[in-house]
């Protein structure tokens, strides 16, 4: 979901800006490939469960752990079969939806809450700031494991609850980052000038502070995507995360753990999907960070002329 908003952002700059951006993207092959991968993953997440849902759940105990790259059982088994004889490929595609939902849900919720509180804490008076920051301390010290057990015990294991658990634990990082940057930006000359000229708070925040804070937040958010997917996997490993019949890549990695030495493909493919998603997201966001920053864009343009 983050990807959608990220990709959508330049649209506001007008049609020509968007196509210019696209051609710039085409010139940076790594970023282009990343964008294509992300689009594919989103397609999987949207269409996968409807198209492959049944296939992903059809078990065959006697044909379990079938090795990958064997087309004898059909294309769905090209990545092998899992411990219940279900096709890995179909399961990976179907799992994309809940994986992306959990990861983007947790990242977006914690980003929104954390950044807002951080802005308030950095911008408003000392007392409010003090209250918010100590709240962040409390959340930071509250182990995610305990939050997970409390939420799962009281509310039951489900995808929305998992988003809740992960989002709570990730709030402090956005909060503290935003506040620290706001404190710094607030003191800069142009912001001080805006204050002197009588600009309103919201205008200062939107015009002067957010643009400076956003790149850092986006870097952290894209990294957090991986962090959240893995945290969810770890919770499954410890037996307090998402449980079957729900599937996520994280859960698949955790379930493949006993077979690491006998059927490596059970844990490797979902792990690889997590790695590829993270790589694509971060490479694209790194590229975008430069592409969207007028003071940096010359790097891409300069290099692309050099390349051609």
């Amino acid at each position, binding site marked *: 979901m983050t990807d959608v908003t990220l990709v959508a952002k330049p649209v506001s700059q007008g049609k020509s800006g968007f196509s210019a951006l696209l051609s710039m993207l085409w010139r940076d092959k790594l970023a282009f490939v990343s964008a294509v991968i992300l689009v594919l993953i989103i397609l999987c997440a949207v269409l996968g469960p409807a198209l492959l849902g049944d296939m992903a*759940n059809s*078990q065959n*105990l*006697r044909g*379990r752990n079938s090795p990958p790259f064997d087309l004898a059982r059909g294309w769905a088994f090209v990545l092998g079969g899992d*411990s*219940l004889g279900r096709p890995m490929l179909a399961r990976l595609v179907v799992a994309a939806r809940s994986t992306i939902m959990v990861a983007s849900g947790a990242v977006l919720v914690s980003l929104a809450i954390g950044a807002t509180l951080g802005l308030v804490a950095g911008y408003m008076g000392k007392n409010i700031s003090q209250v918010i920051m100590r709240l962040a301390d409390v959340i930071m010290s509250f182990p995610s494991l305990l939050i997970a*057990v409390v939420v*799962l*015990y009281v509310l039951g*294991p489900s995808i929305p609850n998992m988003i809740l658990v992960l989002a709570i634990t990730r709030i402090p990082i956005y909060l503290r980052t935003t506040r620290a940057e706001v404190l710094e930006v607030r003191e800069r000359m142009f912001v001080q000038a805006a204050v002197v000229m009588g600009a309103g708070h919201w205008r200062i925040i939107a015009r002067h502070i957010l643009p400076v804070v956003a790149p850092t937040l986006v870097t952290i958010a894209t990294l957090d995507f991986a962090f959240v997917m893995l945290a969810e996997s770890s919770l499954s490993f410890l*037996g*307090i995360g998402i*449980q*079957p*019949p729900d599937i996520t890549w994280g859960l698949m990695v955790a*379930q493949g753990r*006993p*077979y*690491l*030495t*006998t059927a490596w493909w059970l844990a490797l493919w979902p792990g690889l999907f997590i790695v590829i998603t993270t790589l694509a997201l971060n490479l694209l966001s790194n590229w975008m960070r430069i592409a969207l920053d007028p003071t940096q864009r010359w790097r891409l343009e300069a290099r692309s002329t050099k390349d051609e």
Partner: protein
Amino acid sequence: MGASQRRPCLTAKLYWEAELTFKHLLIGALLASTIATPAMAQANTDITVVLSEELDLVEPCMATRSNIGRVILQNISETLTELDVRGDKGLMPRLADSWEDKGDGTWQFKLHSGVKFSDGTTFDAADVKHSFDRVFSDQLTCESKRYFADTTLTFTVVDDLTIDVKAEPAQPVLPLLMSLVTMVPSETPMEFVRDPIGTGPYVMTEWTAGQQIVLDRRADYWGAQPEVTKATYLFRSEPAVRAGMVAAGEADIAPQITAEVADNKATDFTYLNSETVYLRVDGQDAPTSDIRIRQALNAAIDREAFIGTVLPAGTELAVAMVPPTTLGWNPDLTPPAYDPELAKKLIAEAKADGVDVSLPIEVVARTENFPNVTEVSEALVQMFNEVGFTATLHMVEVAEHEQYYSKPYPESTGTRLVLAQHDNSRGDPVFSMFFKYDSKGTQSGVNDPKVDEMIAAASAATGDERAALWSELFKYVHDDIVADVLLFHMVGLSRVGERLDFTPTIATNQQLQLAEIGFK
């Protein structure tokens, strides 16, 4: 190295140097590990055991808890009697030389003379009495108390080596129950101890919480001297690591590894581990109150398909709540055949008689209950759905599972089938049948006066009559009322280092007697 050849000279040199230092490090590591290894697993008679679970306590009266029992039972603390799990000798003397039924619920135990505790005091009848006083004390919560739930025991010290135990009501398996209570000296305080004193062949010489426990052989043990001189217990929760430690020579025995990591026939043993896996069915709940639905559930499961796939080869199909080595086990019972057509037919018949067969069935299973529990549960749910049930899976962690498993059962729209694992290595069904089938049993889904009567009768009987009564009960529960969905007698896998002469048994889950370990 192929890529680095094209590098400028300087970089290549740096790489080369870096690699050299790396090699030095590795050689260092290699040396260190060869030096370190003998300190852990010596070539002599000291052994290292790597267990899956750490011990919270080393309290003798908690020895029936498996993780504690594996370390202290019969090693540090001994019992009056002992069940033979290797042969067919039945109940054997340990600290008691003999016992006799005096009638009227009283048993007389003659104690072995010349037995000394590891603190030097002599073991006598007063110690037996004190050991039981601790079990029943309200100052500490001893596990073994549960075996005497509805029984009042009165102890009379006849002389130093003779004690009378009177049970009210009479307890025909009292000598067997004596194999579950460990003996401590009369000086032992009424609180959990951290330095257990026992009569066993070993004494605990080190306990570093979180790391290791060390037992050393006692020179003044009353019985035959075991071969193992010292045992170090380590704790690793990951089966691959435990198995790897034996393979790497860091440990000698790794109980409870998984089938997936047991890849060495020479060192890996498979044995029935006294656990039985079943689905507890609530017979008071719709739609499972109808016997045809319970039969359909049984017929829907392709039990054979699990074995050698998600469960290790050697797993046996269960026809009773207790493993085949138990008294009164009924060899005439056969597991329900896999017959999806029969299941569909039974469901249709029940439906025709007004049973709402569309009610949801929720299979509740516990994460980490046994290896591959998730796969087993997922497969069961699919098999139920294939014959037309509306089954879903609900995986929960241990505390939540307990809520579904024990009474009072929470409300549900349809019904819940609780996947559970029950352990009885004690040799007698009395430890299982009341809890699982009596109408007052805490995990029972049965409410049948005839079952209650049969359990009461069998519990009070002795000898061949007892075996026959249990046998009859197994048949009634399995064939006549189809009380639950019995699935598998599970196997355990242990890896035993090649220098040891040791075969794990059905009791290895509960105890690991160092005296049974020899060297090749």
